[in-house]
């Protein structure tokens, strides 16, 4: 289709303005976090160096990274066997599991926080008041995203046929799970892990209201004394999370092209 030069110019300008709206806050973060207050007009990496040098901040980075890995592992332990089992043995339960997994999209996280105090008191009683206790409610937040990734991977393979073949050759259910199904849904598991880590790293609703110290809460606490470091940490987080999510989009695209849908 041919388009008039005016039409093309209007489109180009519109896209450029939108791109500017999205680029300005990101560029501002770089500008803000490298300002040298003592020598106006000069740049300094001081605020960025605090990411490693500030004990509290560095500890919160380690906490959030470990917490995200722990959450993703828990999510796998809970969801992968359940979904494989549903696929192979109780397909009738598929709609129920799907409904439950997508439910957290319809219930605001804030609502869960308001109602979860007693549950968390009970969790704290067993594991102590540590940020790692958050991994349990975080698994619920990840359910919709993890379910979609794993479900598309499971539906793309011939799980039932492969499982039946393995079973008839004498494989145990454990062998079927670990050596037949799991290797085939690895791409789905990787994308579920990516989005899981990205979400947990930035989660603020649970951690702030239930008073656990994670990277996002530490960024807010620090902003009162050293705003530049808070901005630097936020920018670093954006880079990491974007890398994870972009990686995710590559994984999903590769799969969709091979599926040929």
């Amino acid at each position, binding site marked *: 289709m041919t388009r008039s030069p005016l039409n093309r110019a209007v489109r180009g300008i519109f896209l450029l303005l939108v791109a500017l709206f999205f680029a300005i806050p990101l560029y501002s973060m770089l500008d803000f976090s490298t300002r040298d207050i003592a020598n106006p007009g000069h740049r300094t990496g001081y605020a960025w160096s605090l990411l490693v040098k500030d004990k509290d901040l560095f500890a919160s980075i380690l906490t959030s990274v470990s917490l995200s890995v722990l959450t993703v592992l828990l999510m796998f332990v809970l969801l992968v066997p359940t979904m494989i089992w*549903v696929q192979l043995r109780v397909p009738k339960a598929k709609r129920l599991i799907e409904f439950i997994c997508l439910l957290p999209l319809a219930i605001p996280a804030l609502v869960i926080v308001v*109602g979860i105090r007693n549950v968390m008191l009970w969790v704290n009683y067993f594991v102590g008041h540590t940020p790692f206790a958050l991994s349990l409610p975080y698994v619920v937040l990840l359910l919709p995203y993890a379910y979609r990734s794993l479900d598309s991977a499971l539906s793309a393979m011939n799980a039932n046929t492969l499982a039946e073949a393995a079973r008839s050759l004498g494989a145990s259910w454990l062998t079927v799970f670990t050596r037949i199904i799991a290797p085939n849904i690895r791409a789905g598991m990787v994308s579920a892990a990516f989005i899981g880590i990205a979400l947990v790293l930035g989660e603020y609703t649970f951690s702030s209201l239930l008073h656990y110290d994670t990277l996002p809460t530490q960024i807010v606490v620090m902003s009162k004394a050293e705003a530049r470091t808070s*901005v630097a940490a936020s920018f670093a987080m954006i880079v990491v999370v974007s890398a994870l999510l972009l990686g995710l989009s590559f994984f999903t695209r590769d799969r969709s092209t091979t599926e040929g849908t």
Partner: protein
Amino acid sequence: MTSSTAKGSGRRFSVGPSLPLLPFLAFVTVFLFVPTVTVIIGAFQTAEGGFSAGSLSYLGSAAAVAALKGSLIVSAASAIIGAVVGGLVAYIISTAPPRSLLRRVVVSVSGVLAQFGGVTLAFAFLASYGFSGMVTLALANRGVDLYGDGWLFRLPGITLVYTYFQIPLMVIVFLPALEGLRPQWREAAVNLGATTRQYWLEVGLPLLRPAFLGSTLLLFANSFAAYATVAALVGQGAPVTPLLIRQLFSSEVLLGGAVNAKVLALEMVVVVAVVMALYAWLLRRTSRWLR
């Protein structure tokens, strides 16, 4: 190992194969259903432990009404801006070839930006439009007072920050509907003598309307339920419902604070549920043509 024959027999009901689902069901019961039910029941609980709908009268208080109004304004404004701008972006890239660089970049970047929010997004806007933000300072040098009376921390500012994730979300959810618009329909219309204007008014827009409205509702629910971004942006005060909940939830001293927090949480659940139900209904209407 005879239990494996149960599969496919259909008539015989056996609980055995469902047992492995128990850990999952127990987990979501404790960490999803119990908290949600706690909120719903707690909203009707009196201080003495009895039940009454009297606590719901808090919804009519000045603070709750003002916060709900703020939330509705922010959600509607950010949803409409997001839907219009995001819809236009989606339309422009939908006319580009599917494998073109522009299209792939916009889709990938939208996927990332739609997940943005929370503390990092709040600080991104503070670094640009805050008191000593880059844009604020740059304009101040030219004699323009962008910061003003702190609009960034009130409804207009919250709306602006929310559009940052609403526009990309719109691109993602609306693009499939645009892709469903077949070029053959346009060719058919043109062959029958329709002008571009007629094609859009009588074929394109009516087809897209359910998908557009549905996406707008999804955006509305998305910002209505958002908490982290606005909590990191606005330190105190309660211009929107989630922040009023924070105030009530965090103040143990305030009598009835816990109950009122649950009443507001219930209000949020109801609003989001109604909007999502409408969304699902519109989605079904869309699927008839554009899927």
